[in-house]
């Protein structure tokens, strides 16, 4: 294991993040504040409590998940797509590193950035609503796993993408709808029975439900199932990445 290489990739990728720190920091803060103003204050004041939690507080875990998932995916996909695009990937391919080191470096950096943004949003939300986190350790565990698994997904997208449009396509067409329809802003139990069943096929439901449980102790699906779902998703992504590097798909001719 070439730890020095993992460290180098990680530091190099984080430098990209720090170069654009203001953008990285301000945009989640502003968008979160907007969500709170619109959903929490304007609309939320007319909505009753959901599962015993005020609506403004109820949407906090969903908001964090929404940002974390999209940020993790886009950071990781851009991180590996950019070297492909500008040609610096030659260096990764000719260096004494295996897929494991490349993946840990890029995915680790993308997950760190997403984690940072998630925590910024959590901090911002304290300004607007009263929340107590009932299971802080579980909260961190869910947040970390979500950052990691969606960074892995982003990494796959970055390798697959042949141009910048494709890079945006999956986050826009798949991830955002799944997150919006995955109970970010409502409880699944508020839906008609048919839609409840359909929603259960949305993997994001399990993540948001588990994450919300760590805040409020209530969940749409059992917590064990949530953990199983996220573990399965992570394993799937790791499997795909291992296959990519084994075959050299879209990387090594």
């Amino acid at each position, binding site marked *: 294991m*070439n730890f*020095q*290489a993992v*460290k*180098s*990739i990680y*530091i*190099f990728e984080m*430098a*990209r993040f720090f*170069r654009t720190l203001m953008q990285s920091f301000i945009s989640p803060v502003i968008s979160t504040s907007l969500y709170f103003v619109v959903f929490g204050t304007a609309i939320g004041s007319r909505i009753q409590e959901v599962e015993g939690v005020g609506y403004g507080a109820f949407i906090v875990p969903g908001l964090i998940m929404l940002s974390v998932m999209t940020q993790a995916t886009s950071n990781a996909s851009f991180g590996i797509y*950019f*070297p492909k695009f*500008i*040609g*610096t990937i*030659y*260096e*990764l*391919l*000719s*260096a*004494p*590193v*295996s897929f494991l080191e490349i993946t840990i470096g890029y995915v680790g950096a993308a997950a760190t950035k997403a984690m940072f943004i998630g925590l910024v949003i959590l901090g911002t939300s304290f300004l607007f609503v009263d929340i107590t986190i009932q299971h802080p350790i579980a909260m961190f565990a869910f947040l970390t796993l979500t950052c990691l698994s969606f960074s892995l997904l982003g990494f796959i997208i970055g390798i697959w993408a042949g141009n910048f449009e494709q890079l945006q396509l999956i986050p826009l067409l798949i991830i955002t709808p799944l997150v919006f329809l995955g109970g970010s802003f409502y409880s699944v139990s508020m839906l008609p029975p048919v839609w409840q069943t359909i929603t259960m096929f949305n993997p994001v439901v399990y993540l948001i439900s588990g994450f919300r449980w760590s805040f409020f102790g209530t969940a749409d699906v059992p917590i064990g199932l949530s953990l199983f779902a996220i573990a399965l998703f992570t394993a799937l992504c790791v499997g795909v990445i291992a296959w990519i590097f084994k075959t*050299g798909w879209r990387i*090594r*001719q």
Partner: protein
Amino acid sequence: MTNIVEVSNLTKRYDGGFEALSSVDLSIEQGEIIALLGPNGAGKTTLISTICGITRSTSGEVKIGGHDNVTDFRAARALVGLVPQEINLEPFEKVINTVKFSRGLFGKAPNDAYLEKILRSLSLWDKKDSKVMMLSGGMKRRVLIAKALAHEPRILFLDEPTAGVDVELRKDMWDVVAKLKEDGVTIILTTHYIEEAEAIADRIGIIAKGEILLVEDKDHLMKRMGKKSLKVELAEPATEIPEELADYNLSLDAGNLVYTYDTTTDRTGITSLLGDLQKAGFRMTDLQTQQSSLEEIFVSLVADKEGVA
């Protein structure tokens, strides 16, 4: 001499069916500078990319320092630095950071003193905190070399290092290469510029259509392949080749006689030619000899290959 790079029977066929390398064999000796010459699309870059692990071979084997470049890729690649043909650099990053990144990627612990030495030798030290995008084309090429040297490689591949580089910088690069050779680094460079190969290489390989046509010691190659010509300037210009000299390989050049001969034979025929000229009553004003350059050798070899194919 031990061979530090051993390429045997290497074939590379791309997915489209194009065969970029056909059963290439190449041995590179430790500490030498070998220049690979070839026209565009000859397979020079594919050969380098396959040795360095950027592309996979279809069949055949590459050993670097005795390590197989697939099964023992860590040990093999750790020895190699690569300067690619295209200027592939992260535009928004500082020079020093891209060089540090390269060193770390190859598993080497940070060594600021060594990196300073490299950057100074390439006249990049003043620019270490500049963003790559702010540098000129020639400077960017130096950054590529600095990156390739950052992990103290024993073998350096330079893929057309002086393409699009001005004369002064080209000479600077030759100095850098000469310095590396002194330090015992083996250098493999591909080039379009025959004068470059002539100036710095110990051995020359000629590659065309995915095959290595020959690899030879530069001086030996030029001697073996080199034809010499003797130009005899006459006081009274000749209009045709004199009959009594018909046995010699003569041609006319603006009224002067040009004798082409082979330097490798024991008898060049110069003595008898000059004697016969005198006997025939020609008055000579000057004599010039000329040796064919590597360029002519190269062009004739490649033309033969392309004519056959």
